[in-house]
């Protein structure tokens, strides 16, 4: 808890420690545990509109979403890092984890509001989905801006070797986009999180598909270019 408190209250100090490689494994473990717990709690709320089973499944799936995506994207991060100069993978992972933790804690701070709407407006699925999209967006943007702050401290641009650090940061941003890209698909694969009211509980929705082709297909149909069968 103290570590998360430092992360929230005193980020410069936290990232300074990351830069000096102090206690990285311990930091990793704490943030992993904290974000897992926070995301699981929020997952329970997400599924609570549907059924108990949906709650349990969302409690597992929400942490899985963030952490599995990290796992999937870690090799690329490693390769990008070795292309840079003397970066350490653990530093990068701590950076990403810190941003996930911030997102998770912020989401948890919205939990009372979400719970309140579950209790007072139980039958409005679309509304519930939309406010959650909103909460996730805010928390995610805050997490990303925290990451941005961390990057500037951990890998500051040096005047003599400016090229190297700038390319490192650029690579990191590229990787972050990849993370978002993969994350959307992971979320699509393990949906539902909220669960449509009339439909019986399903751990993973059976019809496959792909979030991007789905969006493109819908756009195409709307614009009348193509008809997807």
């Amino acid at each position, binding site marked *: 808890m103290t570590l998360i408190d430092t992360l*929230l*209250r005193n980020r410069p100090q936290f990232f300074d420690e990351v830069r000096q490689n102090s206690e990285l494994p311990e930091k990793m473990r704490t943030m992993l545990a904290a974000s897992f717990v926070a995301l699981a709690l929020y997952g329970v709320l997400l599924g609570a509109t549907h059924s108990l089973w949906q709650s349990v499944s969302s409690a597992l799936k929400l942490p899985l979403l963030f952490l599995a995506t990290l796992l999937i994207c870690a090799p690329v991060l490693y390769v990008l890092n070795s292309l840079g100069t003397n970066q350490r993978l653990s530093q990068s992972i701590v950076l990403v984890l810190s941003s996930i933790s*911030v997102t998770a*804690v*912020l989401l*948890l*701070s*919205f*939990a*009372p*509001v979400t*719970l*309140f*709407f579950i209790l*007072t*407006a*139980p*039958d*409005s699925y*679309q*509304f519930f989905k939309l406010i959650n999209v909103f909460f996730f967006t805010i928390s995610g943007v*805050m997490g990303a801006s*925290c990451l941005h702050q961390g990057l500037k401290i951990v890998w500051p641009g040096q005047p003599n070797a400016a090229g190297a650090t700038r390319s490192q940061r650029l690579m990191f941003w590229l990787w972050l986009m990849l993370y978002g890209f993969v994350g959307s698909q992971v979320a699509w694969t393990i949906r539902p999180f909220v669960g449509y009211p009339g439909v019986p509980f399903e751990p993973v929705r059976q019809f496959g598909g792909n979030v991007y082709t789905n969006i493109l297909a819908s756009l195409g149909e709307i614009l009348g270019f193509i008809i997807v069968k």
Partner: protein
Amino acid sequence: MGTFSDRRYLQRQIDQISGGFTQDFAVVETLLRDRQQFFAQIRETVDVPVKIRAMLVSSVAFLAVYGAVLGSTHSLLQALSSAVKLPLLFLTTMIICIPTLYVFSVLFGSNQRLHQSLALVLSAITVMAVLMLSFASITLFFMLTTSGYQFFKLLNVFFFIVAGIISMVFLTQGMRAVSTADGEQGRIGRRLVLFFWVLLYGFVGSQMAWTLRPFVGYPDAEFELIRQLGGNFYADIFHSIGELLGFFIVT
């Protein structure tokens, strides 16, 4: 003799309780008259729990009085129920929304503790409650001299808006006064957080009020503790707008 000492004991109890109330109201007076000092004390965490208690007691009392006035157009039962519901509305909304304010402020470099945030928000609610109490005599006057339900409702909406805006300004001042100890970094961020939080408070508060309604009570309707037709304030509004514009039909 027994009854005498009993009575004296009772008297002492009453004195103690009323003394407590007097103290609580004294704290509120400091809040109104000398808010800079009040905020400075919150910043230096002087007697924060005492202040929180005092503000809780007085805002509940004031809002209950106004709630009773609100409901008294309808019936005695409605007056009693509104007297409970009006304080409940403000304080439950506060409890629901305070974690968001706290965590986001901390993220933007605030050094506040949770009870400091609580005291600040509570002070804004107390100011609102005092203002509502000062409007109560006007409300009462209109209640006695006119009989239009719609007019009465609109008048109250107006009073709530005025009191709400003033208390929001108050909250902004308080936040600024208390956060002078914090770093320069993230100052604009914290102001934005407060702005959005006030929106969130209004958002949750509207839904809460919708859930707890009626407060005034429609004249011809029977007394009801909570109106049974559920629904969601916003879904209802979106629904109406959507149908109005003819874009989509929400089912």
